């Protein structure tokens, strides 16, 4: 299959074969072309060239409806569910014909029992967890009795415990003869679950391998080429005084779609990186906005920057106090999409870099600042006068992080530092964060990527439903333990002595 987009060949003559009963991994970094390939298989994108054979017969899949008709089902990363409707109502809406709701509810119960996907058809979606919502999507697919199930990074929204349950289900489905195409860049999962793997890099197929014959590191080598470099992790940082302290912070939710923060306590010392894990939508965005001043806290004393109460300060007074931040969403929050990099450099830099005099913008100085960020952080762009939206995700992230680091913050809060960023850029970002910490800054990383946090943070905790767990030294934690924290379960044994150490 071949598919080109303006300026990039997303898929370059890619071959892929899946047998019935096989769990086949489609492995590649962000931007390798995985999504493009499955979108063509599911009829969302039209291939430029190539053929699809389904059960030995050549088919043209011109729409998702045609794909479903053939027996191809897909579970997307982002769910399409109506919060205010019940499970059975949501599933009935996806059907091509009118169905009897009671009959459908019985079918749902039956399917969910058979495959270990507990689901109450009468529950309303808004009461369900992310894992339960994913089950709706899977059950919806299974009701169509598919021959091929495509799953696009299904575990990125799940806790490790939920992942285990999902894998049991997928294995049972495969035993019954269903072909499963499993898209991921998480090597451990692929090692555990999949039989064969097709590896993509930069739009090309690198190889097809039996997963049992490979190790995670050989898979990683194929996925990333020679960009990979080992991180030296878990050294003991030299920590200094507490720079950022949060005491019993409570913030009511702004609207029905946001999370309220309750009783958040945390402290970050100079020289250390603290990681906060959590499944998406558990209050990460709200926490970032509370810490960087986009939303003020009800009490000034609940946020303390370098011994000064800062809860009622706005973003710019907090910047003056030395606190910089990088939000999760780049375009539209961390950067202004249709304005150029000079204006984007000004956006958060004007206060500390002195780019403003009596209300007039000093553009020559701003241009130099933007150019310095571009050079220092090797942002790939044709210059500083291109709009932010024309940069790739990784380059824009380098620019945004570079913009904050160039201001030499004393406290840095970063949300999802390497989400959607290729391995090379991710490494640059990790290295510069560690370097900043070594220079004595306090760094807080909020991320959904547990592997990243385990690798780079000195202490780690998790946020769940707007509540933050205690922070534990990362060296004493395992992925499973953090998984429990992510699910909101308190660690009983040893918690007391660990807490006293920190």
């Amino acid at each position, binding site marked *: 299959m071949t598919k080109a987009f303006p300026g990039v060949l997303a898929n370059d003559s890619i071959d892929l074969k899946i047998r019935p009963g096989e769990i086949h991994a489609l492995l590649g970094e962000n931007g390798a072309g995985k999504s493009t390939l499955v979108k063509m298989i599911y009829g969302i994108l039209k291939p430029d*060239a190539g053929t699809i054979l389904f059960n030995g017969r050549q088919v043209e899949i011109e729409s998702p409806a045609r794909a479903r008709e053939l027996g191809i089902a897909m579970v997307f990363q982002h769910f399409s569910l109506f919060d205010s409707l019940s499970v059975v109502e949501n599933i009935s809406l996806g059907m091509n014909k009118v169905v009897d709701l009671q009959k459908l509810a019985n079918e749902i119960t039956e399917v969910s029992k058979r495959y270990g996907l507990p689901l109450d058809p009468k529950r309303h979606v808004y009461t369900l967890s992310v894992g339960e919502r994913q089950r709706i999507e899977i059950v919806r697919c299974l009701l169509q009795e598919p021959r091929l199930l495509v799953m696009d990074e299904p575990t990125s929204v799940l806790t490790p415990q939920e992942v285990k349950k999902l894998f049991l289900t997928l294995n049972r489905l495969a035993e019954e003869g269903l072909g499963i195409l499993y898209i991921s860049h998480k090597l451990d999962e692929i090692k555990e679950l999949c039989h064969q793997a097709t590896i993509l890099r930069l739009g090309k197929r690198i190889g097809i391998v039996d997963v049992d014959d490979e190790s995670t590191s050989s898979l990683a080598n194929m996925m990333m080429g020679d960009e990979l470099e080992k991180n030296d992790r878990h050294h003991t940082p030299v920590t200094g005084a507490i720079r950022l302290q949060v005491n019993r912070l409570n913030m009511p939710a702004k609207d029905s779609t946001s999370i309220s923060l309750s009783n958040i306590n945390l402290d970050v010392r100079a020289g250390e990186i603290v990681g906060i894990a959590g499944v998406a939508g558990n209050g990460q965005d709200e926490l970032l906005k509370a810490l960087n001043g986009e939303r003020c806290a009800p009490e000034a004393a609940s946020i303390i920057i370098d011994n000064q109460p800062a809860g009622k300060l706005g973003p710019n007074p907090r*910047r003056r106090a030395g606190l910089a931040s990088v939000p999760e*969403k780049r375009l539209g*929050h*961390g950067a*202004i999409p249709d304005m150029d990099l000079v204006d984007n450099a000004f956006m958060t830099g*004007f206060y500390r870099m002195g780019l403003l005099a009596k209300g007039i913008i000093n553009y020559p100085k701003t241009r130099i600042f933007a150019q310095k960020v571009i050079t220092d952080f090797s942002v790939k762009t044709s210059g500083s006068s*291109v*709009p932010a939206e024309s940069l790739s995700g990784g380059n824009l992230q380098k620019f945004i992080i570079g913009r904050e680091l160039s201001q030499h913050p004393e406290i840095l809060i970063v949300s999802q530092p390497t989400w959607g960023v290729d391995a090379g850029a991710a490494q640059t970002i990790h290295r510069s964060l560690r370097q900043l910490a070594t220079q004595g800054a306090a760094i807080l990383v909020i991320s959904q990527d547990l592997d990243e946090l385990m690798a780079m943070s000195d202490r780690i905790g998790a946020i769940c439903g707007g509540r933050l767990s205690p922070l534990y030294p990362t060296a004493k934690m395992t992925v499973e333990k953090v998984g429990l924290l992510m699910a909101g379960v308190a660690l009983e044994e040893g918690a007391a002595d660990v807490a006293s150490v920190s």
Partner: protein
Amino acid sequence: MWPRLVKRQIPSRLMVYLSPVFALLLSLLAGVVLFIIMRVSPLAALHAFFIEPLSSIYGLAELGVKATPLILIGVALSLGFKAGVWNIGAEGQLTIGGLCGGMVALYFYDQEGFYIIPLMLLAGVLGGIVWAAIVAFLRVRFNANEILTSLMLSYVAGLLLNVLMHGPLRDPDGFNFPESRQFSDSALLPTLFDGTRLHIGFLIALLVVALGWIILSKTLMGYQIKVAGSAPAAAEHAGFSTSKIVWTTLLLGGGIAGLAGTIEVAGPIGQLLPNISPGYGFTAIIVAYVGRLHPLGALFAGLLLALTYLGGETAQIQLNLPVAVTGVFQGLLLFFLLASDVLIHYRIRFGKPELAVEKS
């Protein structure tokens, strides 16, 4: 094969400026069709509409007179629209501004003095600000949609002026006509050239264009306006207060619209009437968009839209065309502009996608 729209990788800067040109050409074309349907020679009609008004000094001066309020309000609305604050009630702010400025003139009707005009202009600005402040307060305090409130307040303003014209402000010697006294000479804006009605208000408009341009391109305020309109979440991240931007742009818009209102009554009109504007406040919305929400663009667009007012009058006199043709032309222009703006983000492609699925 039907043409298809293909998304551009980055928005075309060329099309940002070509789009108004396309819109103008398409409006002219639609005008030709319209005139043929109305059984009028399209050539004669277009000549009357777009050439005749420009072929004399008097005509050019009239163009400046009509363009003055359009440019003023067009600049003010550009700033607001850029910030995503949809003040479409400039007509009401103009009316209240004209009313306030006019009342100052009537208070001093039997006096002479250099201070009268500055006082009038000040009163006009304040009147417009007060009227827009209602909208800003409702938006910031209750999150009331400013499109609705500003529009509705326009009708309130019109009715308020009407009530006053039929009552306290009526000329005592005016045979009960709903008109005020004529303003004294000290309350009339000086003209720039003898024999024309072009007044110093036009210079004020040029000054506002320059100020608007500087604000937008050089100041923190202009930067905040641009960011707030383009990416509200980024504006919050940068630490810009949304309510401050709503207040600033609305009060600025109201103040300038009020100024335009006073300039109208102190310039070409010379007294208060129940109706002091042929919809300048609404037409200025088209001016802002045709001018690409840029102050300099508003200058040219203001002149163009002023031409449609003049042309409509000429066509009415020479060819007996209904005056509604003016509104039709203005509407066509905005309509085609919004349609042409698609080309900023998309390109037109003919034929099938280059590489079709292989058939074996």
